């Protein structure tokens, strides 16, 4: 259990570091790799028509 918890924590720190790379405005090489990793694991989010409003 303790090892599993340690592993869970280490995974969270790693995922947070990867996420922070994807939050950069001017991504470098490693940041772009992180973005590619994110897109491959989450995929593109399709547009949701429920979010649309008529224009004024």
């Amino acid at each position, binding site marked *: 259990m303790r090892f599993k918890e340690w592993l869970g*924590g280490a995974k969270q720190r790693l995922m*947070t570091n990867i996420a922070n790379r994807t939050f*950069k405005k001017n991504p470098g090489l490693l940041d772009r790799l992180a973005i590619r990793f994110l897109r491959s694991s989450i995929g593109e989010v399709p547009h949701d028509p429920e979010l649309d409003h008529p224009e004024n």
Partner: protein
Amino acid sequence: MASAKPTNNKNTYSVCTICDIGCQLRAETEDGKLKRMIAHDNPALARNVCYKGTAAAHVHNHVDRLTRPLKRVGERGEDKWEEISYEQAMDEIAERLKKVVDQYGPESMAVSTSGWNTQTTHSMDRRFMNALGTPNYISGVSLCAGNTAAVNKMTYGWFPFADISNSKCIVLFGHNPRKHSWTPIFNMINAARANGAKVIVLDPRVSDQAEVADLHLSLRSGTDAAMCLGWLNVIINEELYDKDFVAEYTVGFDELCERVNDYPLERVAEITGVDAELIAESARMYATAESACIPWTPITDMQISSTSAIRLQSILRALTGNIDIPGGDVFGGFDPNYIPESKLGNHEMLSAEQKAKQLGSDTHPAYTYRAQEMLSEHTERVYGYAYADIVMGCYMANPSATFRAMATEKPYPVKAFFVLGNNALMSYPNQHQILKGMMNQDLIVAHEIFMTPTAMLADYVLPGDVFSERNHISDYWNWKLGLTVSQKAVEPPAEASSTFQFWHDLAHRMGFADLFPWQTIEDILDHRLSPTGKTFEQFSNENYMYIQPPEYRKYRKTGFATPSGKVELKSSVLGELGFDPLPYYREGPAVSEDYPYYVFTGVREDAFFQTGQRQVKVLRDRMPSPKLFMHPVDAERQGIIDHDWVKLQTETGEVTAKVLVQTSMKQGHIRVPHGWWYPEMRGEAKLAGAFISSDAVLCPDDPEYLDYEQGIPHFKGFPGRIVKLNEPPAGMSEQVLAG
């Protein structure tokens, strides 16, 4: 119709403040005007958007936006105004405030605000108040999250944020995150569920979350504390708790066991109306999960046993070993990259004598200075600074006591009321008392983006800015560790400005200039980011978000920020204040032959946040009129069918609304939506219909209706009755009548 792709090249990110969640969206501008607000381009954030957020352009560009300062020219509440310059308004406000303070003392000024709405105050309100000498700050967070933060601190020193995404068991006490309300929480729950998490929902109603839950406990409204005691009974007596953690890190376990044994499952089943075996099964599911969390819920915040129920949720987290672990409830602490509002507020400046005058602290001290300062040295020991104003909720006056003082001038007069981004008239219990209090003021100043019923009662109304019109960095009010950039996309209209500017300008007129050296929002952002060595411009050019990598079980090094240094199952703070140091269940007011239904209010609807947005057509079209929910059996007994108009009456007031008959409702319960008024009735109905459908008239705030420790009203389960109307109410628009 809007499409997903932006049509300009400007990559501007904004933190949406249409509601309190703070999703980061993208702003698209055209010719200096906000054109659209659209979903994020980062796939990890792209689902965190609802239709309120994408309606931001309709809100921000609305023709009814206030753009010039207004001064009252008619009787108070008559809604007659003249436009004046910002400089004149601020000069006159300062002059009149000085007179009030000279005559009645600094504590005669009270401030009501909602940090959710105003966002960029940077605690300049508290800084001003502490410099002036008034402790009388009230906020909607006294009923929602802020009070929970204060009560959580009593048990283990901080207010944890649930790590929902990584959890294996999620417990929702009445909370109903859905696609267009609390959207990121909804997405986290879905992610966890996809990863095998179980979800337990405790809600009188078969809510959206209850429909898909692994277990749904349809408890009687307002009985959360009893349910938690039932869970503890199972967890302790079946030895499902984390024995090592309890032995090493808690105090008061034996006394807690004695108290829990007062609540055998049969008794809890009788109180809550839930089968004993289902209570036991759900307790086992929670306690034996690999990791489990109980996310904050606004429902537990608003009950007559609120303090005990919040503490019991904290105790459940601790006993099951789920605090500060992945997938559990995680302590943040102060963000090392950003100076917290807790520091900017300068709470140490206010004298002990003035703090002692904080309204309500003598009778209901839990979230006032009186109780929270008992934790100060321990907070400093663990977190490095004595004042932790988490979710802005830890050093507040009690709203009911404040409005009573405004109305009756007891225990002392409150004669100047400043209300910012907060429709106070309709946001606290006992709306009639609030009106009485406001009518007895020498000075009322409102800072708003639209004219509201509260603003109509003011002497001065200052036009506020909105999130697309200012720079900001959101830090989640110290609840979780992360910084989210919000960039100014367009200029505010005419003389609209921020609450930061308001307090800065008032402070300079009141002789506190040396305490307010930051001239602009960017100046204060630079100051707050100084631990990073970057300016706002540098930080926001590099990142649009930064999350502090998590650390777990930090208490092993520091202990807990409580007097004992441990998790206080038996609260020394509550004991010292003269309250029961152990959690308990207290029955709310009983239904009767005259008032046979349990009414629960304060319910959020997808289209709106609190009392806002009723004037925004694209949102109002989705929710044209207020609707009560009733069970079909109750409706049939009353001779009511769908869309009938009714009056819901309590001993305190009545609400006019339509009825939706729903099998998802629990029998004997009536659900009332929060915050309804009718902007379209401005000039025709008193205060734009603020007394027609507002749930704030229903719940009394007499002592027997208040939680002992916090003074929280019992919004979840007070007696009421339904009277069918034969005709629709007069004066309603066609949209309301048809919708």
